């Protein structure tokens, strides 16, 4: 075994320097490496999204193929003029997203601040606090339905013991409590996500800033509003945006806990689309609704990033 010659080393080093200087010699290696990922993402994410726009212009009902065909903007016209579910579901969506994201942010921040303190067994408490993040929506639905149940539910029993209610309630099938009940169950699963991202961001705030604030005599409240919150701003904006999109589309809990009822009080737009799709009715119409919900989210995202001035502040600071 002879040591590699200088020429060898030079060749290898050159091989390593990926970007080739000469234009006519394209290095194909990185393209080959990303090709499978690009293919699968384009074919099974981007292409399907594209077809939604296409199908939204068609009648496409698997059970009544006789009427299938191009209908132009008929589906959209029907959504806006004849669909009695569309507007109410949009309002429920608004209520759902605002309460979910708002409460998740507040409680997630509280949990993150709590778990950022120094105390014994912090690791165990962190793990315990984050566990619901790993639980599926369906599982969470089962777990909470066992607790909400009118006949065997523990929530009724506990509330009756404290004396808050006098007789068992059917939390999930009563119009006045169904929405709130689903919200609480979803909070259980959603708070950890905010807590995790905010905790990660909290840990990246340099300690010197807090020391300086202490020297300047800032109290806990001032430190939070003048140091912690501004430092977390970009994380909060991005997490709120991602979470809004996520909750807008999240139907696992609603689907399994209430199925959108009672009296459609928990039917969000996505829940409406999902139930149409699952029951296999007109896919063209479902696609039109999907296109509309996509546009709503797109407009929201653009406006949200504009209004919150994401990253711009970062550069100025």
């Amino acid at each position: 075994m002879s040591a590699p010659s200088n020429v060898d080393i030079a060749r290898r080093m050159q091989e390593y320097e990926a970007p080739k200087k000469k234009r006519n010699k394209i290095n194909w290696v990185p393209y080959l490496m990303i090709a499978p990922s690009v293919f699968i993402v384009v074919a099974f994410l981007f292409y399907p999204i594209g077809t939604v726009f296409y199908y939204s212009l068609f009648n496409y009902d698997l059970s009544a193929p006789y009427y299938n065909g191009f209908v132009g903007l008929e589906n959209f016209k029907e959504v806006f003029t004849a669909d009695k579910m569309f507007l109410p579901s949009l309002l429920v969506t608004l209520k759902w997203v605002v309460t979910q994201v708002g409460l998740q942010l507040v409680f997630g921040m509280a949990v993150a601040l709590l778990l950022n303190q120094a105390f014994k067994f912090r690791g165990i408490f962190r793990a315990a606090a984050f566990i619901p993040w790993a639980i599926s929506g369906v599982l969470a639905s089962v777990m909470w339905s066992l607790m909400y149940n009118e006949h065997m539910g523990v929530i009724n029993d506990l509330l009756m013991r404290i004396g808050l209610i006098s007789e068992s309630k059917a939390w999930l099938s009563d119009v006045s409590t169904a929405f709130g009940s689903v919200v609480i169950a979803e909070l259980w699963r959603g708070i950890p996500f905010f807590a995790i991202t905010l905790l990660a961001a909290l840990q990246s705030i340099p300690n010197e800033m807090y020391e300086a604030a202490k020297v300047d005599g800032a109290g806990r409240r001032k430190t939070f509003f003048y140091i912690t919150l501004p430092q977390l701003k970009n994380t909060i904006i991005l997490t709120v945006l991602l979470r809004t999109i996520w909750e807008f589309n999240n139907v696992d809990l609603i689907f399994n806990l209430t199925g959108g009822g009672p009296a459609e009080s928990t039917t969000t737009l996505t829940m409406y689309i999902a139930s149409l799709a699952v029951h296999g009715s007109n896919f063209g119409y479902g696609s039109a609704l999907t296109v509309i919900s996509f546009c709503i989210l797109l407009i929201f995202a653009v406006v949200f990033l504009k209004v919150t001035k994401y990253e711009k502040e970062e550069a100025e600071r």
Partner: protein
Amino acid sequence: MNRTMDRWLTLRLPLAVMLVFTMFPFYWTINTAFKMDGDIVKRPVEYIPTAPTIDNFVIAWSNVGFATYFKNSLIVGVSTVALVLVLSILSGYALSRYKFKGKRAFMVMLLCTQFIPRAMLIIPLFLIFKNLGLISSPLSLIITYAAVEIPFTTVLMSGFISNVPKELEEAAMIDGCNRIQSLRHVVFPLLVPGIVATGVFTLIYTWNEFLLALMLTNQQSKFTLPVGLSYMMGEFNVNYGALAAGSVIALVPAVLLFIYAQKHLVSGLGGAVKG
């Protein structure tokens, strides 16, 4: 005196509230799973089963079909993880070690996918897989889950690879390794923790995903755990004991995986959101 008060108000009390809120649903599910049929609906409520039984688990596993659901979830989960890991290591390596034309476009494409509403996919993917004849085939779920996960895991992986100093690889090449050898003997061993974390995140996702699995499966023998649970919940006469036991069966792997990987969670997931 004042300090201890403060400690109780800002730390111990909130911690206790948080813990009770987080843990109570687990406790109640496990409690229900071990109760006999009659005891589940008994009043006053039994907070600790007086006559604990494992009947519910036996019924859920063999009669209701959780053995099948579990097997299906495992097949889909493990295959997706394998596919996602191979593809995201490749693309993550390209992103972190090469400069190439279109790299930025590729990154933007990955970012865009994070904003695609997942619920948008149910109708078109159903139609695509129907045309391919893959409805109720595990393959449809494996491909779909991989497509959904790859953007995130690619970014995650390129971060892990960037953390391996380039100089180590260069040194190995100077010592006579070619690129493949240096990857195998130098980079790969250092990547193992990152690969494990990525794999666990992917597995948890596939283990939990519901809506796409519901849409792309129409035979009970092909149900994954979430679809099976949902199906059982929707039945006319729900067997609550077996439902709770089935939940525990679905729960255990997710919780164990989570506890195993949670150390990476704050840095991994948090870092990815921070971007």
